[in-house]
């Protein structure tokens, strides 16, 4: 008997460890031989802990599962009060196009045999057969763009590194997923770490890099443990080492743990941190692709960009490019979070509208109150009102509306949200996390929070000052932290003026 109980951090946060223990105990008492597999999460966080029972017809889901539900699982699974039917048939799951997350929640995360049985390593094998230039062409042709937020074409970045002459080159995976509302990197690393390893090995092969780093944030202890185990297994199996898969070039990956600095998610700050320095931002140019880690050509890619690559190599660029709309091709793992009824990870092709994501997929707010604002793209993303709900989820379309797709996290707020307080939080957060290198961010964020306090105290003259300050931060900051903090602030001010005006009236 095979039972799956996720070990994903979100499932554990909702009691999955106690559930696994209760199931094991119940099975032991009944003398039933049960194999409990601690898989990743299927992404339906509102159903976590989501227990699955393997049957001849497929995997049957039960959730949200409580430790007290264990006995009934062995008595009559068909009529279990938490039974949800076949996992694959749950509408939220069935509607998705799961490419990058195809194996997450399906397999035992640290079983290489399971990984290969579900298509793992096929991309790397094809990449080895194709050779570097054909891999670069394939990635470029897929239309894949950086999933960390900037949306830079991955193929062009790789080609630049491949063409740069150097004695050493590096592949750096940015797993410093600090944006509130995002958890896809964490879920992928916890649920299918070999996919990231395979993607990095393909990048190394294509670009002529022999060393990779994963810079993983310290706030994710579970992901650190899983990736550490997976790297050890990959070395043992010869996926990494002096000859990739026995015949390829050398490639090694080292896991590095961040130290709680949000700004280190910015690529140049991350590189300084990897080098052992303060995580301050570097001016660009030079681009990291030419002068990155230790001054050498370096690919810095987000987890999701690298994890998309094995599928692209396996199924071909055309299959990937066929999904999505306009210049946003392929799939995007949406992370639906905050005050939302059906929160979780939903991978789908680009082009789904914001309203569909929030209302249709997400089911509206968890509180049952009306949606007031949706922040898209993390703490540096704009607050969108319901008026923006027809906006298709794509890079250019969001940019045109004063927003950003970012790492595709969406945080839903109901009508009790105080937009002035959230705008102030954006400035205060920037002040806490600013690396201090450039003045607009370092000083501007502090002054920004003070200026919003003045508005809250009823000083209407502070509003144009805040707008002016935001303009300075946007244009004058060295990186996206100072440069994009104005997005949530100005969008809150523009779309929800009442929240800024009512404070004035209250003060008068």
């Amino acid at each position: 008997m095979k039972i799956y109980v996720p070990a994903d951090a979100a499932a554990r946060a909702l009691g999955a460890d106690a559930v696994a223990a209760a199931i094991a105990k119940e099975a032991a008492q009944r003398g039933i031989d049960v194999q409990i597999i601690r898989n990743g999460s299927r992404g339906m966080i509102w159903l976590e802990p989501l227990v699955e029972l393997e049957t001849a017809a497929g995997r049957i889901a039960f959730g949200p599962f409580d430790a007290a539900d264990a006995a009934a699982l062995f008595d009559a699974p068909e009529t279990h009060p938490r039974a949800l039917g076949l996992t694959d048939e749950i509408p939220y799951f069935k509607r998705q196009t799961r490419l990058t997350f195809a194996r997450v929640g399906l397999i035992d995360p640290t079983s290489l045999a399971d990984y290969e049985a579900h298509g793992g390593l096929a991309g790397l094998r094809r990449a080895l057969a194709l050779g570097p230039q054909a891999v670069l062409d394939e990635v470029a042709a897929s239309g894949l763009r950086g999933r960390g937020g900037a949306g830079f074409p991955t193929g062009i970045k790789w080609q630049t590194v491949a063409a740069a002459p150097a004695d050493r080159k590096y592949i750096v995976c940015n797993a410093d997923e600090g944006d509130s509302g995002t958890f896809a990197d964490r879920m992928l690393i916890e649920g299918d770490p070999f996919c990231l390893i395979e993607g990095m090995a393909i990048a190394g092969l294509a670009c002529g890099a022999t060393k990779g780093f994963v810079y993983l944030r310290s706030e994710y202890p579970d992901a650190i443990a899983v990736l550490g185990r997976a790297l050890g297994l990959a070395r043992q199996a010869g996926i990494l080492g002096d000859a990739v898969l026995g015949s390829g070039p050398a490639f090694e990956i080292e896991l590095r743990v961040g130290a709680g600095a949000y700004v280190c998610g910015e690529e140049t700050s991350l590189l300084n941190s990897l080098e052992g320095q303060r995580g301050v931002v570097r001016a660009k140019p030079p681009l990291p692709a030419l002068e990155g880690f230790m001054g050498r050509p370096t690919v810095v890619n987000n987890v999701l960009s690298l994890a998309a690559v094995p599928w692209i190599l396996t199924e071909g660029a055309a299959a990937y490019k066929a999904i999505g709309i306009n210049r946003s091709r392929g799939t995007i793992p949406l992370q639906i979070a905050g005050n939302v009824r059906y929160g979780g990870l939903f991978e789908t092709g680009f082009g789904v509208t914001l309203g569909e994501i929030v209302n249709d997929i997400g089911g509206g707010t968890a509180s049952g109150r009306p949606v007031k604002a949706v922040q898209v793209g993390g703490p540096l993303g704009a607050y969108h009102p319901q008026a923006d709900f027809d906006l298709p989820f794509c890079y250019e379309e969001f940019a045109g509306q004063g927003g950003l797709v970012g790492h595709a996290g969406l945080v839903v707020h109901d009508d009790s949200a105080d937009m002035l307080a959230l705008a102030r939080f954006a400035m205060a957060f920037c002040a806490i996390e600013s690396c201090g290198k450039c003045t607009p961010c370092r000083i501007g964020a502090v002054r920004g929070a003070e200026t919003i306090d003045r508005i809250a105290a009823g000083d209407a003259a502070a509003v144009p000052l805040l707008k002016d300050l935001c303009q300075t931060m946007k244009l004058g900051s060295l990186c996206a932290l100072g440069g994009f903090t104005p997005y949530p602030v100005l969008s809150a001010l523009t779309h929800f003026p009442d929240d800024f005006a009512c404070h004035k009236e209250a003060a008068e």
Partner: protein
Amino acid sequence: MSEAAIAERMDAILTAHQGLEGPLLPILHAVQAEFGLIPAAAVAPIAKALALTGAEVEGVISFYHDFRRTPAGRHTIKLCRAEACQAMGGDQALARIEAALGLKLGESRADVTLEAVYCLGLCACGPAAQVDGQPIGRLDAAKVAAIAAEVLS
């Protein structure tokens, strides 16, 4: 701990990290794992081993939120203060924890340290916290009471 005892353990840590490219953060993590904080006496040996000045090492330590110069409590509670948790009543969760512990955010006692964290990746089951590294979601009154009972016992 005496300076000699620290120096001895520092030798072992520095030896274990030889050959790494850009080894300072891994070294600092190892030092903190060993001592529970970065002792002042650890700075000079690190600086010497990496051919840095003491000021450069201090600069790196002070940049990152994770590195402590004072000891933490026996238990550490990290409470997420970011937007997704705020949207689910994060302020109320904070008020409950502060009341239950008799401790303000950012404060530390011998038994417990209460820290703010900006995102634990538990954004679809907020408000979220990490207690001694263990993730906790949907932090309601009952869960806060259970955490307080555990850490204060």
